[in-house]
């Protein structure tokens, strides 16, 4: 029988018949929770780990603890299933995608989606199925950091949330899925370089991500030479590309105060007239970009290296 490490990181509310939930808030709750879903024990030998996040889902120490458990146990099991709140699954998945590169076994993330609507808690329609199917994915050769929800197995950089409450609340940005649950598990293999698994424990969020380009007066304050902020990412919309003068002003200001400015647009830039001046990044999800940048900043402070690594397609993170 396969061995699975089940990590309780959050998002584990199992609905019971009477409309109540069983959840794990401390280690001693695990037994009762496992009894509510005996099916997974029939599928694999389950080893459980509880991480007390103290409600800090993406806290650096918690993520390091998570990576540490994964690195310590991955050779002793056939795969790892991580439970997390659905709201932060895309960010967590992308963070682990960068901090654990070329995993030697499947690392599957899923969670329970309990939402409050009109003073009523709506239970998850899929959690039990997601757990059972996550263990099916562990039994396959999908050695990736992936997310399973509903009938879709999605690679971390492609995941986007599209619905609040449904059978499938996530989809792949480019409609390409690692696998789908139809009759069985239909796997679409991904061409990957055969490299050894790498674990990175350091990452830094010493940057700001703006969804638009603020007024130049605000930027003068942020990009001030004395401010601790070294990197700013701006989400550039098409009309802002046309407003070239404004962007050049921002760049010159950043250049003068030795700050790195990055322009980001998920769909792409029509004309790369910025080339060697402003750093433009496109065809990557915002979660993947921020976690990639945090991983890079954990490795280096050198601006040239940061630019090169951001532009480089390291793990197939850029979309078609």
């Amino acid at each position, binding site marked *: 029988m396969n061995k699975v490490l089940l990590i309780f990181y959050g998002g584990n509310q199992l609905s019971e018949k009477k409309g109540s939930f069983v959840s794990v808030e401390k280690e001693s709750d695990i037994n009762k929770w496992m009894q509510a879903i005996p*099916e*997974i024990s*029939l*599928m694999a030998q389950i080893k459980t780990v509880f991480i007390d996040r103290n409600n800090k889902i993406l806290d650096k120490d918690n993520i390091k603890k998570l990576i540490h458990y994964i690195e310590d146990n991955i050779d002793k099991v056939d795969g790892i299933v991580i439970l997390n709140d659905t709201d932060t699954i895309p960010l967590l998945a992308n963070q682990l995608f960068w901090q654990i590169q070329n995993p030697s076994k499947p690392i599957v993330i899923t969670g329970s989606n309990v939402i409050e609507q009109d003073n009523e808690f709506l239970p*998850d*329609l*899929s*959690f*039990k*199925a*997601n757990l*059972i*199917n996550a263990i*099916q994915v562990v*039994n*396959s050769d999908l050695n990736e950091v992936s997310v399973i929800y*509903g*009938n879709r197995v999605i690679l971390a950089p492609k995941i986007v949330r599209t619905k609040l409450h449904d*059978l*499938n609340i996530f*989809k792949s940005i480019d*409609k390409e899925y690692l696998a789908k*649950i*139809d*009759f*069985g*598990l*239909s*796997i679409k293999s991904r061409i990957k370089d055969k490299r050894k698994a790498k674990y990175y424990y350091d990452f830094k969020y010493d940057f700001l991500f703006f969804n638009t380009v603020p007024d130049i007066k605000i930027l003068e304050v942020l990009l001030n030479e004395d401010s601790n902020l070294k990197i700013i990412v701006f989400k550039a919309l098409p009309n802002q590309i046309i407003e070239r003068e404004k962007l050049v002003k921002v760049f010159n200001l950043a250049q003068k105060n030795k700050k790195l400015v990055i322009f980001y647009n998920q769909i792409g830039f029509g004309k790369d007239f910025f080339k060697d001046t402003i750093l433009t990044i496109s065809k990557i999800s915002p979660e993947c970009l921020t976690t990639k940048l945090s991983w890079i900043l954990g490795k280096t402070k050198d601006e040239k290296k940061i630019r090169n690594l951001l532009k480089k397609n390291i793990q197939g993170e850029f979309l078609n």
Partner: protein
Amino acid sequence: MWIKFSILMLVALLNLILGILISIKNQGKEKFIKYFVLLYFSATIWTLGLGFALLITDANLFLIIARVFYVAATVIILSFFMFSVHFLYSYKVNKVLKYIIILFTLYIFYIILSGDLFIGVYEYRGLMHELEDSTLHLVYGIYFIGIMIYSHYLLFSKYHKSQGVNKSRLLFVIIGTAISFVLGTFFAWYMPYINKHYLDWIAPIFVFFMTFSISYLLFKKENE
């Protein structure tokens, strides 16, 4: 005769194609996939056997073919049983029941393969037809229908406990297989049991319901 033969060859080909498609598309390590593919390959052999039996004029050759399609039919129900045990997750079958099924299966294979204990042959209008011993035919029916009912019971109890996408998967499987097995058993076992062998060739056609429901699961396009 040639029309019946052609229909059965077409059904056998469809079963073979779907068996291959399932094994290619769902190439994971799941046990239930392997058992379901075995079911389809056995259904192919069963259908081919029934088809060729329509044309045989030699009694000895007919007996061999009849044994082949009875063995194939037994493998169909056994593989379906194993599929229902392992679909999604493995169900723990009661030990006593497990031994009963094993012993009963061994007895069934014995009666099929030994001499003319179970299966006989007679000639009618130049063609050969099978003639089963009625008591053993009844025993075979009890065995087949018993495992069919128990397998569906396992699937139903999994359906009852399931949620989300697994619930709909189970529903399609249950509906497709139940219709196929009930109608198939009616024409392949009951009609011969009441000495109306001439309709047994229809039974493989009902595999179509299972084929349709599984194909729908495999190939349906989602709204993104």
